[in-house]
């Protein structure tokens, strides 16, 4: 049994505590510890990604066997998500250090590491209640990060965000209690067998619980009509925090995929039937929001909502091909949204506001405009970047005329919105006012460059990545190996 599986949870927890205890007033030490931690986490994630190809591996906490103790399960999907979190956290951390965001409030790095711990734990755990606990860990860290730096609007948006998520947590608990009341277990692999073996009479309760659970994940994934928290939160959060939050919506998608394929495959006609129209509405709302936003950060937030819609649409199809496409799009949209949120922050620092109206030209205008172009091309799904490949994969997996119409029209509207924003910010700028000087911040640009390089890498290596994701999707849709790794029998 490899003890590396628990490292992505324990390491950030220990480092975060160390930062609070030992490096309270020393920002340089905090930065050092956090950066080393994030890089080591990236290395561990790469190691686990390699290890996961051998099949699911279970780590028993306290060495209690599966249905009685809590287990962590490393399979291809969880390893992929760990790598995505680690790969996102390093550039974001470099950006934070390069721009000095961490000096605007206290405990940024400790909260950042706790956030990573919550994310990693949520992706690794094989126990439904433990999933709730890790959700809370990542949420409470995100509350702190969201209001980092303070300010009236940020605090107000923060209260809405916390209230919305507390309600989500309450619903999560009700769903879990119902599931436990019906099946008597909360281990996911055990649930898979128990739910499949339920007599007809008890199926009503489990259906209600499954739908409530999916509602909770839809809140996290910002699926219409549960997306109201996202634009305000992401637009008011500090730029790099919003970039990290790009992976938080994906926690919702991950949980839907995990619970859907493992525990509720028999209930998928019900769940998928609800997901599909909601996903289409999300795509439409995201595209319209991009077109209608008068503020760059809100525009990016709506673009992120739209991408979640496409992701959930692919998930709702519930086939190996569609799930593989969804996973590819998941990686892509996380990176693309992060790039755009970081650029929005660069623009905010240079213009003093995010309103989409002509203003004085910015320092480093050409570089920011070029990076924005790359991010916008990726986000809208234009060739040559990975957004195009991702959308193509989803469309191939769902060859229905209405799906193609919705995706293509929404892409067009999104492109229009992004093009308008870019031309107002970067071209009309030359016509008015004096340029305010601003330091160059090579680290910050390097961080954005790293993320763009990730998008390019995802495009260039689309072949091997898709092959790997197809294997992942096949393993998800045939969870016998996952259940056997828990020492349990398949239904």
């Amino acid at each position, binding site marked *: 049994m490899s003890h590396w599986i628990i490292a992505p949870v324990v390491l950030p927890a220990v480092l975060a505590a160390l930062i609070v205890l030992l490096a309270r007033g020393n920002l340089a030490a905090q930065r050092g510890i956090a950066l080393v931690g994030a890089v080591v986490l990236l290395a561990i994630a790469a190691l686990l990604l390699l290890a996961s190809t051998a099949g699911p591996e279970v780590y028993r906490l306290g060495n209690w066997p599966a249905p009685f103790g809590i287990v962590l399960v490393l399979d291809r999907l969880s390893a992929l998500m760990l790598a995505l979190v680690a790969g996102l956290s390093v550039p974001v951390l470099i950006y934070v250090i390069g721009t000095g965001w961490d000096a605007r409030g206290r405990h940024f790095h400790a909260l950042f590491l706790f956030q990573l711990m919550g994310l990693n734990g949520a992706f690794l755990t094989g126990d439904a209640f433990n999933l709730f606990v890790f959700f809370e860990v990542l949420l409470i860290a995100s509350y702190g990060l969201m209001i980092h730096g303070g300010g009236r609007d940020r605090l107000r948006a923060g*209260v*809405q965000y*916390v*209230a919305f998520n507390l309600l989500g947590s*309450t619903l999560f*608990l009700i769903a879990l209690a119902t599931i*436990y009341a019906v099946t008597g277990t909360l281990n996911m692999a055990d649930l898979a067998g128990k739910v499949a073996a339920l007599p007809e009479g008890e199926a009503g309760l489990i259906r209600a619980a499954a739908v409530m659970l999916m509602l909770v994940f839809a809140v996290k994934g910002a699926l219409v009509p549960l997306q109201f928290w996202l634009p305000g939160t992401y637009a008011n959060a500090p730029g790099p925090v919003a970039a990290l939050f790009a992976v938080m919506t994906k926690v919702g998608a991950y949980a839907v995929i995990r619970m859907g394929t493992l525990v509720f495959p028999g209930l998928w006609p019900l769940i998928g039937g609800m997901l599909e129209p909601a996903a289409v509405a999300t795509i439409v709302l995201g595209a319209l929001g991009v077109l209608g936003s008068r503020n760059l950060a809100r525009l990016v937030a709506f673009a992120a909502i739209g991408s979640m819609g496409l992701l959930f649409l692919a998930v709702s199809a519930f086939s190996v091909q569609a799930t593989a496409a969804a996973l590819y799009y998941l990686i892509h949209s996380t990176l693309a949204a992060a790039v755009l949120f970081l650029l929005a922050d660069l623009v905010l620092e240079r213009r003093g506001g995010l309103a989409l109206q002509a203003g004085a030209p910015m320092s480093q205008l050409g570089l920011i405009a070029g990076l924005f172009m790359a991010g916008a091309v990726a986000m809208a799904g234009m060739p040559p970047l990975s957004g195009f490949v991702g959308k193509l994969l989803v469309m191939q997996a769902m060859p229905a005329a209405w799906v193609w119409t919705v995706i293509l029209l929404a892409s067009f509207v999104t492109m229009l919105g992004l093009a308008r924003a870019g031309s107002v910010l970067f071209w009309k700028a030359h016509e008015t006012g004096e340029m305010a000087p601003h330091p160059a911040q090579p680290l910050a640009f390097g961080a954005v460059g790293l993320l763009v390089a990730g998008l390019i890498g995802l495009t260039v290596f689309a072949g091997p990545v898709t092959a790997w994701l197809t294997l992942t999707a096949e393993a998800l849709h045939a969870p016998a190996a996952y259940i056997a790794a828990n020492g349990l029998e398949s239904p």
Partner: protein
Amino acid sequence: MEALVAIAIGLLTAGGIYLMLRQRTYPVILGLSLLSYAVNIFIFAAGRLAPGLPPIIDKAQAGYTDPLPQALVLTAIVISFGMTAVIVLMALGSFLSSGDDRVDGGAE
């Protein structure tokens, strides 16, 4: 007994949802607390109601009560307590910085 617990959960939930839909932060937080109480009792009841029985298997007793929901409830109480503390502080910060405690008031 079942009816009593069910009614209590229902009343707490109804009150919680009503308060949560109010405009100002204080009733909203109270509503969230009521909801978390409701949910705690609900989790507790998920292990079936078995009055007067120990949470371990004891040959001398007629049966046992499921200990797992009690552990779950403990976790849920701790988490909701912590979260309530966080939202109280954030609401206070928001009120002090803007002089207004409406949840969705204010300009963009």
